[in-house]
């Protein structure tokens, strides 16, 4: 991810058998480049395995699994960063719900706390998605790399608590 910080789109992606079977390809209009981008997904099985562990981490730590999903899709499955970001966002809706309904059904969610927080997240997400389509992938990457570093520090802190 860090090595690829300047790159805009993946090149020379050869799809594997499973991604061809599932027709895992797509295209989107990139406003930053000003042209249509077609892409292919590869290494579906390694991607699936990483997603499995990202789900465990998300359920255990309550962190957004996007921090694992985006690098997995971007670096392993060789998708364009913008498609990775959008797909991760789309998936988290379902994956987070499967965890959230459990907490909600057990009355572990305090509405007076969660309500304002979710409202803030919603408004931020609406702004973020509108910004994302306009920004270049290289810029998004530069913003994402320190975020991964910060999350890693926080996970170490939560897990070790030496200090």
């Amino acid at each position: 991810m860090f090595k690829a910080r300047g790159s805009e789109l993946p090149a020379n992606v050869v799809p594997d058998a499973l991604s061809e079977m599932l027709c895992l390809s797509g295209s989107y209009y990139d406003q930053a480049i000003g042209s249509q981008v077609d892409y292919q997904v590869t290494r579906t099985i390694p991607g699936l395995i990483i997603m499995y562990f990202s789900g465990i981490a998300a359920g255990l730590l309550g962190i957004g699994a996007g921090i694992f999903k985006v690098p997995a899709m971007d670096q392993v499955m060789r998708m364009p960063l913008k498609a990775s970001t959008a797909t991760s966002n789309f998936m988290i809706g379902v994956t987070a719900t499967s965890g959230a309904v459990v907490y909600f059904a057990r009355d572990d969610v305090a509405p007076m706390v969660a309500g304002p927080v979710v409202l803030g997240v919603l408004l931020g997400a609406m702004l973020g998605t509108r910004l994302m389509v306009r920004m270049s992938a290289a810029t998004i990457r530069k913003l994402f790399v320190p975020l991964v570093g910060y999350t890693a520090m926080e996970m170490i802190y939560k897990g070790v608590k030496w200090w």
Partner: protein
Amino acid sequence: MVVNETQQDNDSEFISIEAILARLLRIGSVIATILLGAGMLSMGLGNLNEAPRLFTSGLLVMLATPVMRVLVAGLVFAKKKDWLFFIICFVVLCTLTAGILLGNGE
């Protein structure tokens, strides 16, 4: 986003699955935002009876939106006779249901 949607509408004679899901997700998040905003307003006005109810309903809409999305995606795949993706949707839906039922247990 809007550009994409209209482009895909023109591509095929029926509305694409992306356009259907985009509309569903937009409706869901707008309703949730309105409910949560109303909750914030009533909290600001000191109406502590109404605020938690509005927040809870907003959160429920928020939780129901992805479930509805999987359901609708499954129905669209069934209509297209894309059975592989229909089964994937069905498995996801079963996982979500299991989560709701088992989470309530203890």
